[in-house]
């Protein structure tokens, strides 16, 4: 099992969400983060242009079985893309184990619904 952490633009969230559904991803979690780095976002306050290096981003955490890894990554790469600096990153980790709290299933089985 792998965990995919994708950092994407908030504005692409709905696109990514749909792309993931299309690939059959049943579940994911997300939260909002701030990205801090070299690129900046422009904001205008009282006529002054403000270049903020704090950038709002959304973090998606998706745990998938190994067989689904590639298609999930491709789905994100396609749907989150705009081509401009700041499109975000995808990180892949290995996961040792997974449990479904509801029925104590563990391992890859915990990741999809058989019903």
């Amino acid at each position: 099992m792998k965990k995919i952490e994708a950092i994407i633009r908030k504005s692409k969230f709905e696109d990514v969400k749909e792309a993931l559904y299309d690939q059959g991803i049943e579940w994911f979690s997300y939260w909002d983060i701030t990205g801090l780095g070299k690129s900046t976002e422009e904001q205008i306050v009282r006529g002054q242009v403000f270049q903020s290096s704090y950038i709002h981003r959304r973090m998606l955490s998706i745990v998938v079985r190994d067989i689904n890894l590639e298609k999930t990554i491709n789905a994100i790469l396609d749907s989150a893309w705009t081509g401009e600096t700041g499109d975000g990153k995808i990180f892949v980790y290995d996961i040792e184990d997974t449990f479904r709290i509801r029925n104590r299933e563990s391992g890859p089985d915990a990741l999809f619904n058989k019903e």
Partner: protein
Amino acid sequence: MKKNILSIMALLALSVSALSAQTAAPVAPTVDAGDTAWMIVATAFVLLMSIPGLALFYGGLVRRKNVLNVFMQVFILVAVISVEWVIIGYSNAFGSNSIEALKPYIGGFDWAFLNNIGINDLSPYFISHSQVGLDGAAVGTIPHIIFIMFQCMFAVITPALIIGAFAERINFKGFLIFSVLWSLFIYNPVAHWVWAGDGWLFKLGALDFAGGTVVHINAGVAAIVTAIMLGKRRDYKGHAIPAHNITYVVIGAGLLWVGWFGFNAGSGLAADGLAANALMVTHIAAAAAALTWALLDWIIDKRPTIVGISTGAVGGLVAITPAAGFVGIPGALAIGVLVSLVCFCMVAYVKPKLGYDDSLDAFGVHGVGGILGALLTGVLASPLIQSSYSGAIYGNFHQLWIQFLAVGVTIVFSGVGTFILFKLVDKLVGLRASDKHEAIGLDETQHGETAYNNFD
């Protein structure tokens, strides 16, 4: 502008109520319940401007870690200046001085602790409504006490406006001491000059209906002086820092707008045509200024912003303040449009060039808007509103000259006075928050509190 103006009374005869006309006979002067009702409410409205109005407007504009500090600054000023006002402030500002030479410059101590002021005394100050008292002197139609409280709210909000200049980097103790001294030594004298019956600017004929010089220029100049003396915020790079909660900014601007009806329409001290007109021009100037700022944003920066339109509205309210009793619709529209043009340039172009850090543009909006409004009052004052006052466009260039003088004197006095008080307090307890405190945020370091808590 307020005392013993019998000549005006005659001219305003039509607007003087039948009631008071009847009481010209030697009957005891009476409280007019209508005027009093309005002044009580106007007083409440001006308090609403400070808390929660100004607290929200300023608090929304700062960073999350400093919002409580701003709220606290406004709140404690309401408390401390109100107490100062009844103890000594009102007497100094509106009282008469027993030393003849000081009369034009500062009131005395006769009214300290509101001594000698009875619950049934009528206000010695009035604008359009007056009546003859038992001792033959003219008095107003409202209780003296409500005039005192109405003015109290002005005394409170003026130092509160300065907060915008030094937000996010001042030591709370220093701030408090500075603000009290500033009220005592800057606000009270200037209020005396402009509004007291024996104030020298008042006698000169300076026009300031609701506080252009006394409140806005005064606070605005103090703002830029403290902003410069305190230095920039550690991470200030020449441009505004985005607001942590823009909805608060709008709510605050909305409450300021509503409250300003008390501020301006209340300054006529009666519920009459003059108050109605003051309310109207206040509203229209604010609307025109808001619209102008939104259009500037739209044209120059592609999109109208809500911080911009709120700032414009406040700018319009500031600029109409001295003029509210002297101009009509054309004047209100002109003042509204001009103030946004000027303040926009000031904030967007001049300020970044000069590089000082006036955190929330207390000078850029209140100082600049106040100066513009005070001068335009000298230009646009129309005899159609109060027949004895007219401005340059009606040929009375002298009025404009007096306005220049009043503005100039206020700028110099407030500037120099603020400089001295700042130095003093800085020596005494230190005004700048430590770098570490500034980084952590003033809520945590000055008050041990966090505005928004998420546990559970």
